[in-house]
C-alpha cells in the first residue's frame, strides 16, 4: 500500500538570534501514514506538531530530511490539488459569505464555476450551513466558522486531509458529527492526518497514532497494539497470603467478593510468572483477559518518561 504521508529524518531547527541557542522544533522525525487510514498525531503544546504539518504543506522548509505526500515531495504544487488542510481556529475573509468562501477556494483549485456551485451547495448542506450560506462570515459563530472550514477542506474532494484540532469550540453534538464525518471519509478511502488534544476522539476514530514531544517522536503504532500492550487482568481464587505478597511486588491485587482476587498485571512479561506462582500454591485461575488502557494514561506516561 502506498504511503499517504512519509517522512524521513525530517528536522527543523530555528536559529534564535536573541537566545543564541538554536531551537529544535522537530528532530529526525520518521513517520508513515498509510492510505485509507486515520492517523492521530499527538503531543503537548509546543511539541512540534504544527511545525511538522507546515513542513508537510510546504509552508515551512525543513532544515534537513525529507517528506513526501502521496509519493510526491511535500510542497509540490500538483499534489496540493489532492490534499486539504483545516488549520486550528481557521480564519477567513470576514466580508465574504459562506458560499463566497467556498467559491473562492474552489477557484484556487482551478475548478470550473458549475462544479464549484454544485459542490459548495452539497457541502454546505453536509456541514449544516445551507441556511446561512449568504450570511457574512463576520456574523458566524465559532462553531459555524469551524464548519465552513471543514467544508472548504472538502471542496476539492481530497485524498488526504490534514486536520488540526477540528473539534475545538464545538458543542457535543457537533463534536460527534465531526467524528462521524471523519469515519465516513475514511470509509470513502480517504486518508486523514489528525492532530488533536481530544484524546477521547482520537481513541474512537484513529487507526494509528504517533506521540511527539519536544520535536522527538516518542512512540508510534496501531492504537490497539499500544493500548493493549501487555496489560492483563487475571482473576484467581484460593491464593495463599504468601503468594499474594509476592505478586503484590510487581502487580496490583484487589480483593473482591467470594475470595476472588483480581490481579492487574501491567507488565506482559510478568504474566507467566504470576501464573506459575498461582499454580505453585494450588490457586485456581478463573480468567486471564487483556486489559485496554485509556489513551490518556498512555499519553501522560509516555510524555513523562520522555521528559526524564
Amino acid at each position, binding site marked *: 500500500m502506498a504511503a499517504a504521508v512519509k517522512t524521513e529524518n525530517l528536522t527543523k531547527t530555528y536559529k534564535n538570534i536573541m537566545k543564541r541557542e538554536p531551537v529544535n522544533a522537530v528532530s529526525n522525525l520518521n513517520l508513515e501514514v498509510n492510505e485509507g487510514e486515520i492517523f492521530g498525531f499527538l503531543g503537548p503544546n509546543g511539541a512540534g506538531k504544527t511545525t511538522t504539518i*507546515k513542513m508537510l504543506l510546504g*509552508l515551512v522548509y525543513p532544515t534537513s530530511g525529507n517528506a513526501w505526500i502521496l509519493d510526491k515531495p511535500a510542497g509540490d504544487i500538483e499534489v496540493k490539488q489532492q490534499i486539504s488542510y483545516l488549520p486550528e481556529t481557521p480564519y477567513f475573509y470576514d466580508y465574504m459569505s459562506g458560499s463566497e468562501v467556498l467559491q473562492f477556494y474552489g477557484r484556487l483549485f482551478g475548478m470550473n464555476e458549475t462544479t464549484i456551485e454544485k459542490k459548495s451547495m452539497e457541502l454546505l448542506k453536509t456541514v449544516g450551513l445551507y441556511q446561512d450560506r449568504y450570511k457574512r462570515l463576520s456574523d458566524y459563530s465559532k462553531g459555524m466558522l469551524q464548519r465552513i472550514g471543514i467544508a472548504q477542506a472538502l471542496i476539492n474532494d481530497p485524498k488526504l486531509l490534514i486536520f488540526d484540532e477540528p473539534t475545538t469550540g464545538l458543542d457535543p453534538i457537533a463534536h460527534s458529527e465531526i467524528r462521524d464525518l471523519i469515519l465516513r471519509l475514511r470509509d470513502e478511502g480517504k486518508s486523514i492526518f489528525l492532530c488533536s488534544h481530544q484524546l477521547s476522539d482520537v481513541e474512537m476514530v484513529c487507526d494509528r497514532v504517533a506521540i511527539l514531544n519536544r520535536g522527538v517522536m516518542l512512540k508510534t503504532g496501531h492504537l490497539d497494539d499500544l493500548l493493549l500492550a501487555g496489560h492483563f487482568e487475571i482473576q484467581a481464587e484460593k491464593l495463599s497470603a504468601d503468594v499474594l505478597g509476592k505478586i503484590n511486588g510487581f502487580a496490583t491485587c484487589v480483593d473482591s467478593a467470594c475470595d476472588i482476587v483480581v490481579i492487574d498485571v501491567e507488565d506482559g512479561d510478568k504474566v507467566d510468572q504470576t501464573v506459575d506462582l498461582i499454580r505453585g500454591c494450588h490457586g485456581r485461575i478463573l480468567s486471564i483477559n487483556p486489559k485496554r488502557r485509556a489513551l490518556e494514561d498512555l499519553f501522560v506516561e509516555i510524555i513523562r518518561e520522555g521528559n526524564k
Partner: protein
Amino acid sequence: MTTLTIARNTFGEAIRKKILLICLLVAMAMIAFAVSFASFTMREELTIIKSFGLGVIAIAGMFMAVILGINLIPQEMERKTIYTILSKPVRRYEFLLGKFFGALATILVSLAVMTVAFMLMVFFKNHYVVDFAMLKGIVMIFFQLLLLTAVALIFSVFTTPVVNFFMTSAVYIIGSLADVTESMSHGTDKNVLVRGFYMIVHYLTPQFANFFTQNPLIHGIVIKNEAVYYSWNILYAIVYSSILLIVAILVFERRDM
C-alpha cells in the same frame, strides 16, 4: 488565473476597509474646501483649486498606497488566512502578485473617484471647459503610487507594519528630494565618499520627484518633449517596480510561514 482570484479577493477586502473610505471622504472634502478661497482673481482661484486638488489627491493616494502596502502580507499572516491559501495549489509568487494587483486596483478605483470630483470642480470654475491637462497629473500620480506600493510590498515581506510605515515614508521623502541628491552627487567641492553616497541614493533609490509635474500643469506651461518625459517616467515606474517585485518574490519564496 489564480493570481486573478487572489487579486479580486484582495480588492474586495481592501475596498471595504474603513480607513480607506475615510481617506476618500477627507480627500473629497479638501478638494471642495479649495473652492472656498473666493477672494482672489479668477486665475488665482483656478490655480488654487488645481494645486489643492492635485495635491490632495496625491496625499490621499500616498496614504492609501502605504496603508494597503504595509499590510498586504502581514495581515494575512496575522489572521492565518495565508495558511489556507498557500496549502492550496497556489504558487507563492501567484499569491504575492495577486495581492499586489488587488491593492493596485483598489488605488486605481479610489483615484478615479477623486479625479471625477476634482475634474468636475475644475470644470465649473473654468468657464465650463474640461481641463484634460489635469488628467496627465493624475496619470503621474498613479504611477508614483504604483512604485510606492511596490516599495511597501517588498518591505512587508520581512518587516512589521509599524517599521514598514516609517521605512516606506523615509524612502518616499528621500525620493522627493531628487534635486538635492542630484546636486550633491555632482558637487565638485565634496569628497568622493560623500558624492558616491549621494550618487547611490540618487540613482538607486526610487526617485518620486520625477513624477511631480503638477507645477507646469497647473500654470498651463507645456514641458519640452512632454510625451517623451511622461513615457520615460511610466517606464521607470514599471521597470523599478518589476525589480522590487522580483526581489519580493525571491524573498517570499524562501520564507518560513
